[in-house]
């Protein structure tokens, strides 16, 4: 059994879902996503047992492109994130009715397929293909099943697509250039290429453009809030929970090891950008009227910190950012789901129209509050572990980075609690608000359980990712 199994499961799942018809689609999709989760756990087991779960097949001879999937700890961690979040996301959508549900769920699985592929690909071009493929389903999900004014939505979604595509095409150019030097797209060959500082700089920049837009790092974030707002919540979850991790993951996997000189040279600038994102995102989030937009900006702030951690080029920074990626993935999915739960009852996302929910639905309030607290990295949640590690690594570079990056714990608390206060607290709302249903509760509970468990015991994840990260660091520091 190797890593391609999970890809196959997801792909077959996508087709099976499409052909199962609107009524069954959601269940079939859930089934396949759970199968993928199971598969990834089995793979994890095999990996831990020392089995080789990588695949390499030649695909195109000239230019030499291989179908190479590499299951190492880092990739597996991200795959697990995807495989775990996908069922949650699908399950969380059970409360909604979608027209043309078969297409909807098929696209979700297809997107999971592409994202898993991105995390596993060990060939530059294959990676790029998966990277781009992931864009298409989310585009349609946001376009067709999105909400809000149709014209606005179209604009936002097209902007998103073009913008992200723009970034990634430069990455493609960089890959082609690298291919000229390496004679192969295989990641290990790309790692070996010797590039001059100037070449590295441009390649680094090309990669950066792709990732900065995807992650997003300011000032390339302008697509984000609008798309998060306009997309259906499932889409937003996929985007924020998994897809933007693609960018962060790629920084670690591709950008840094391929252009280490540039990474070292311009480290401070990129860290600074990440941290600027933290502060900017937090401040903008403060005054958002739309719940999803607020969460979008909070996401901007968090990923800014993760990116900053990645660019420190230290084991701590890398490890912290990976953990933070996973933690953020879960928490942001939870938060967006909470927004969706409110939307299901109130039909609005305007914070101003909410309030006083707590009295009517204590369970929901508690769950939401835990997610809010996790998002502000309260110790004992997994987010804290990640954020602490990242901040620590930043402090090793320059204490000011840690201080400025650390403002997230103040500003984050400010906007999140403010939001919580206006959404949940206050005088009992005149509109009734039914407490969470069983389905909703299960989704929340799983997320919260994961966050708390790893908050106290992050060792499994640390042990899983550390060897790969060390390898990456070795490549970075080879010169």
């Amino acid at each position, binding site marked *: 059994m190797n890593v391609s199994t999970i890809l196959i499961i997801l792909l077959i799942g996508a087709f099976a879902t499409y052909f199962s018809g609107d009524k069954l689609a959601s269940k079939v999709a859930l089934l396949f996503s759970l199968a993928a989760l199971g598969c990834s756990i089995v793979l994890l087991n095999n990996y831990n047992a020392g089995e080789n779960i990588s695949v390499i097949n030649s*695909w*195109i*001879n*000239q*230019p030499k492109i291989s179908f190479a999937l590499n299951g190492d700890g880092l990739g597996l961690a991200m795959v697990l994130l995807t495989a775990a979040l996908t069922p949650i996301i699908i399950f969380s959508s059970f409360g909604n009715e979608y027209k043309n549900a078969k*297409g909807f769920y098929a696209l979700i699985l297809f997107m999971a397929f592409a994202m898993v592929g991105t995390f596993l690909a060990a060939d530059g*071009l294959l990676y*790029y*293909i*998966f990277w*781009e*493929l992931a*864009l*298409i389903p989310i585009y*349609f999900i946001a*376009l*067709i099943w999105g909400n809000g004014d*149709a014209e606005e*939505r*179209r604009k936002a979604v*097209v902007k998103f*697509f*073009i913008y992200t*595509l*723009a970034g990634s*095409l*430069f990455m*493609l*150019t960089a890959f*082609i*250039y690298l*291919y*000229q030097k390496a004679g192969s797209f295989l990641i290990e060959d790309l790692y070996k290429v010797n590039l001059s500082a100037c070449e590295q700089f441009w390649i680094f920049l090309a990669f950066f453009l792709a990732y900065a837009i995807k992650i997003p790092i300011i000032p390339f974030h302008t697509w984000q809030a609008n798309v998060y707002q306009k997309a259906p919540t499932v889409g937003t979850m996929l985007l924020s929970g998994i897809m933007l991790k693609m960018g962060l993951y790629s920084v670690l996997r591709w950008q840094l090891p391929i252009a280490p000189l540039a990474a070292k040279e311009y480290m401070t600038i990129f860290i600074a950008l990440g941290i600027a994102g933290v502060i900017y995102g937090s401040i903008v989030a403060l005054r958002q009227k739309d719940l999803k937009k607020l969460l979008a900006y909070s996401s901007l702030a968090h990923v800014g910190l993760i990116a900053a951690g990645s660019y420190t080029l230290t084991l701590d920074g890398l490890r912290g950012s990976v953990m933070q990626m996973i933690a953020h993935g879960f928490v942001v999915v939870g938060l967006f789901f909470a927004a969706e739960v409110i939307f299901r009852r109130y039909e609005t996302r305007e914070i101003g129209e909410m309030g006083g929910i707590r009295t009517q639905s204590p369970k929901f309030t508690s769950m939401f509050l835990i997610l809010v607290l996790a998002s502000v990295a309260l110790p004992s949640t997994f987010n804290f572990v990640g954020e602490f590690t990242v901040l620590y690594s930043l402090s090793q570079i320059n204490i000011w980075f840690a201080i400025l990056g650390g403002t997230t714990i103040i500003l984050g608390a400010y906007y999140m609690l403010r939001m919580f206060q206006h959404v949940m607290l206050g005088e009992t709302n005149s509109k009734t608000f039914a407490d969470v249903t069983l389905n909703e509760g299960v989704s929340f509970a799983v997320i919260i359980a994961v966050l708390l468990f790893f908050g106290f015991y992050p060792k499994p994840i640390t042990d899983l990712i550390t060897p790969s990260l060390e390898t990456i660091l070795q490549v970075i520091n080879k010169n």
Partner: protein
Amino acid sequence: MNTLIAITGLGIFCLLFEILNLRKAIIPITILGLIGVLALNYCEFGTEQSYYNNMIAVSKFSTAFSSLFIVLTIFLVALSHNFYQNHPTKISDFVAIKVFLLAGAVAMVSFGNLAMFFLGIEILSIALYVLAASDRLNIKSNEAGMKYFLMGSFASGIILFGICLIYGAMGSFDISEIHESALSAELPIWFPIGMILMVVGMLFKVAAVPFHFWAPDVYEGSPALTTALMSTLAKVVAIATLFKLIASMNFISSLENQDLLHTFEVIVVIISIASMSVGNIMALRQVNVKRMLAFSGISHAGFMLMTLLTVSASAGVLLYYTAAYALAGIAAFSVILYVCRDQDNEDITNFHGLGKTNPLLAAVLTASLLSMAGIPIFSGFFAKLFLFNQTIQAGYIGLVIVAVINSIISVGYYFKLIIAMYSKEPNQERTGRPFLIYATAVVSIVLNIALGLFPSLVLDLLK
């Protein structure tokens, strides 16, 4: 050679069927015939042979491209059935003209003598003039035909002048002779001038900037099937011929001998950049789908022209690119034909809600547009990838960056159509599921994706 004969014979058969009153059988028989021709052509593949005093020189290049042309013609003929439903008396003419046009196209890529080339291009052009103007009661079609005719003849004149100057320099029309003497030191300047004039004439045919103005108008005015033909077959033929002209007559080395290579390459780069940029930018504001695809075609011409910079190595890439582009084009046009068959225009509004009324066709159109935009797994992506790879290898990284930027712009208008299909409400009932249109659309897009999954199949043909 056999291919050419067979095609011609098939064309004449078409005409005979009309006389024999077998109209219903024309399209199936022609398709079967073309499939036979394809098989015949396939048998010739790999043989390097010249026929009749090197009038026809069969090579891998010519057979590979001929196969592509034949495949495209099969699709176009298949689409004819529904398109000419209202013109039963003319169907044989239409089909025959298409088949003859194919003969011209095959002659253009397998010529061994400039006479064949010239006749080939004229057959192609005249057939296209006729097809463009074929909706005789429609003023737009008349206008399109007239515009195409005037400008096309003008371009033919220039090509002819170029041939004449080459003849003046070489004293021969035979390309192998020209190939040999192209490197001689004594070469008069007539040869490069003649070549340049021919290249300009061909640039007109591929609709490269600044010789592109005819394309949008003619594409828009022509009957949709003709537009499909022009934007797929004709464009592919033209670019392949241009490539062959430059490659087979040792033009590059000759220019190098005379220190003109650099300026020529600059020109190619400029035209390539101008074509992609103008094509893509102009397409942004179009509401007529055919017109939009015309501009898209212009930009793709710009991309394809990049192969001229690496003539010695990029035949395979060109074949791949053209195949990807043309297959996507066929798929797109079959949907357009379906959607706009009862409409008097091809505005984007006609496509509103296609995703709901005809999900399959909408998916096909989406896929073909994505392919043209260069989104992975569709062959359009690999085409661009190989092209960029080739071009970067030759050192034109700046050109590739411009091309990349253009790819980004192109998404803007391709997606306009996708959005119209999926996020707007349908404004008309669409009934009927014409089998041939569906089949063409699906088969061509499947071929496109298959090319994407197994690019080596085509890419390595010309190694």
